[in-house]
């Protein structure tokens, strides 16, 4: 395990990050003054609906924002170093050794023309300067760790020979092979069935314990959030609207958007009264091209007032570690 001589146990510290995409139709502000901290070994959940900026946040940490997107300003401190100041070669090193990522769709994240073994060992050979044989042994060890019972055989197989759940296990093995400080998991179980999802989530938590890896868990599923995270940030239209520890979030969420999201999910454990309707948040998510003046949630909010239309609410602390962006709660 890597040693850290940090004064504090802050692993990631994002300050005033602005990301914009320059499209033909205009400038889309994907992230606006984003502040986010991840501590060592903790699991931070990032929740929100499509287009709210969850994935852009993770890509910004990796410095992998695709064209025509650009990081406009801000700082991203990782292990005490500002990633924005690193050049391509240095950044490549960080990505190889300290940050790993798993994606929603393991099928498109794996190269179909290389065997599992080649894909697992390549990074070890290049970045950790391991010999082919040693890399292969290490790959077998990691496959075993993610619950693949016959790793020797699996290494010779191609991705199409494996099921979705197996491929995601391979992705996790690959991500953990460098023993990273931070694992970014972007909807890692969304494409999987519930019984397989349960297996994969348990596996991720076990391995986190073992390697003391911090996990940034990006998901839209509040069930997954409740089950695996320590702290949660809720995003809406490129801004974090609420941030707190997971227990507080589910007990006393304050922001009307967070509350709406929670009430809108049909429950698998309780019935509504006969003919009772699901709670809905009216309207649609605003497009990032034409965000309203003032609070971004104003058009869908039942608490909206004159103040919300004229200026943007600050992100303020209500109790220890519980931050909310709203005038009315």
């Amino acid at each position, binding site marked *: 395990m890597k040693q850290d001589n940090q004064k504090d146990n802050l692993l990631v510290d994002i300050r005033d990050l602005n990301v914009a995409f320059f499209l033909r139709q205009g400038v889309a502000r994907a992230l606006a003054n984003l502040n986010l901290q991840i501590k060592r070994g903790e699991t931070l959940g990032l929740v929100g609906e499509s287009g709210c900026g969850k994935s852009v946040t993770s890509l910004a940490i990796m410095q992998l924002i695709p064209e025509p997107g650009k990081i406009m300003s801000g700082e991203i401190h990782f292990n005490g170093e500002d990633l924005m100041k690193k050049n391509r070669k240095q950044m490549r090193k960080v990505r190889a050794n300290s940050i790993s990522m798993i994606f929603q769709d393991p099928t498109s994240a794996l190269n179909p023309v290389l065997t599992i073994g080649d894909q697992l060992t390549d990074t070890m050979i290049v970045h950790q300067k391991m010999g082919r044989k040693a890399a292969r042994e290490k790959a077998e060890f990691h496959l075993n760790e993610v619950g693949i019972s016959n790793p020797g055989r699996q290494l010779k197989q191609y991705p199409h020979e494996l099921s979705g759940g197996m491929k995601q296990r391979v992705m996790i093995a690959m991500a953990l092979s460098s023993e990273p400080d931070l694992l970014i998991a972007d909807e890692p179980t969304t494409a999987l069935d519930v*019984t397989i999802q349960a297996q994969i989530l348990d596996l991720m938590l076990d391995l986190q314990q073992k390697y003391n890896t911090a996990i940034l868990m990006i998901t839209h599923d509040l069930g997954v959030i409740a089950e695996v995270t320590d702290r949660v940030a809720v995003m809406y239209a490129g801004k974090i609207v609420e941030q707190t520890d997971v227990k507080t979030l589910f007990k006393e969420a304050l922001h009307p958007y967070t509350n709406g999201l929670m009430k809108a999910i049909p429950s698998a*454990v309780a019935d509504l009264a006969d003919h009772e309707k699901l709670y809905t948040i009216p309207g649609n998510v605003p497009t990032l091209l034409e965000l309203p003046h003032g609070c971004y949630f104003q058009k869908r909010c039942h608490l909206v007032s004159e103040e919300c239309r004229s200026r943007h609410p600050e992100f303020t602390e209500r109790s220890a570690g519980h931050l909310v962006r709203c005038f009315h709660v």
Partner: protein
Amino acid sequence: MSVLLKVNKIKTYFPIRRGLLQRVIGHVKAVDGVDFHLNELETLGIVGESGCGKSTVGKTVLHLIPPTEGEVIFEGDNLEELNEKEMQQKRMHMQMIFQDPYMSLNPRLTVREIITDAPVYHGLIDRKDTRKLAMKLMDFVGLSSRQLNRFPHEFSGGQRQRICIARALSLNPKMIICDEAVSALDVSIQAQILNLFRDLQQEFKLSYLFISHDMGVIRFISDRVAVMYLGRIVELAEKKELFTNPLHPYTKALLSAIPLPDPEQKKKRQPLQGEVPSPTRNYPGCPFAERCPMVIEECSTTVPQLTELGNNHQVSCIRV
């Protein structure tokens, strides 16, 4: 309550062909002997994991894929025995809504054309009345009639699904098969569409066959629920009964695997080991046997039948 749809022991097999002569070397048994009925004004939820055959059941009911064996009886007529013309008439009463509202709308047609082409084709309305009908349907599904002449790409995912619903309603159907109809939508939009489905059911006197992998959605929308595994129904019961008193070990595992939105209750899950086996194999016994925590020797030799245990609760397991 009268029965609208009756499905008798349907099997849908897809042949696997290999080699130069394309000889059939086996079958994918997507649906392997499924039995159920759907009452008027009722919603039957079909739930299961990917590859369990729930979508194939939907398509087989419509005879988009004719069953290999068994029969589908809709409004008292066996669909097998209808000729092409009669089948067309029948299809007006049974519509389908798919998962991906981006793929199931023709990008070159305006919303008005999408919604009204079918009723014009079937002679339900005159071509000059399409505007009126389109406006009425748009209103029902919560879209503005000003958007009538727009194209699908100008709408968001939730709005597109509303267009798909309007199109399905345009022929005054009796039954709509919803195949993962809300799975691609965001939570806040999903709730809107689910409520819409409920409202329309009363308004149009509809029956739904609601196919989904999401237990929460199924619990909200269904009256009765069928749980499928490897092409068969393993449990079928009233919604309340199924969720509060699941009997089949697979249903129990499925329910316990759902992550609950409550961090205080980090329950000790008992996740199923292994994965869903291949539907191409022949099972001498229960297809769930190799993953089942309650397995006994008899399970590998006896094929369990869906048996009524009273209270309209049917289970296919020899251990319960």
